[in-house]
């Protein structure tokens, strides 16, 4: 196997056109987010929508730009659940108390 052998299959996936399309979608989602800010929605609704849109954007970046879609499925199964698990642990530690503080200042 030559030095470039491991990258020979990379040619097949991800044409310039595909990358430009992914980029256009990322830009479109950014403008949707900007529109939401312009509308000044309720903070809870705004946060929910923004987090969903950001997760879509990050999925696009990770799958196409970072090429994870074309790696062995085992890599994604190793990395992504581990990250999600740890983030959930941080949320479990922080957020019940955050919700309590919010409740305290909304009901004086």
């Amino acid at each position: 196997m030559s030095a470039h052998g491991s990258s020979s299959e990379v040619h097949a996936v991800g044409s310039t056109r595909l990358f430009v399309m992914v980029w256009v979608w990322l830009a479109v989602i950014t403008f949707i987010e900007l529109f939401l800010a312009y509308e000044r929605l309720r903070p809870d609704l705004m946060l929910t929508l923004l987090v969903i849109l950001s997760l879509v954007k990050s999925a696009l970046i990770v799958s196409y730009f970072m090429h994870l879609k074309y790696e062995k499925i085992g890599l994604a199964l190793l990395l992504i659940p581990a990250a999600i698990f740890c983030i959930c642990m941080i949320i479990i530690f922080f957020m019940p108390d955050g919700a309590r503080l919010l409740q305290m200042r909304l009901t004086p």
Partner: protein
Amino acid sequence: MAETKTVVGVPVSSPWGGGGSPFAINSKKFGMWLFIVSDTLTFSALLLAYSYSRLANPNWPRPFEIYPAIAKSTSMTLILLASSLTMVLGVSAAHRNDRAKTVRWLLLTALGGVAFTVLHLTEWFKLFGEGYTPWSTPQGVPLFGATFFGITGLHMTHVSIGVIYLIIMSIGYGKGKFTSDDVEVSGLYWHFVDLVWMFVFPMIYLMSVSLTG
């Protein structure tokens, strides 16, 4: 499992025999992926700490007016996204062994990073002028300054390190010192920096859009 398979050029007699590469990627790329996951957790913890401080403070500042602050941060987002596109094109050029084009795309990507940092610094200095510092705000909520400058500062540090990384990579790859796989690993880092901003921008800028401006 008696048949001999090859995984990335290494013959292995069994999947459990060792000497193989279970993910069929080189170890530099795997190392970068592990770093990216751990750095994801650093930024998640910081963004969640920001959200917690925000929930706990009744008079959280919302200093960003649509024009100029949000307009500027949106253009910074688009610059970073564009630099991700040039990076990905650089990686494809590297896999085609087109050295001259790869170097050009990498330098263009680094230029995007520099433009992002410069815009971000002008934004910072404007905020300094309005009385927002890492330890105080006009509203008397120092936690806003601490978390805002902490998170955006750490991200800016990542961008600056990325710019240095890309410049070293473009010089080294141009001289034939690095392979296309090394370019791909630097690409992973750069896309990750972009990815982090995709959360910092909505959660810090868009959630704090001024209610009056």
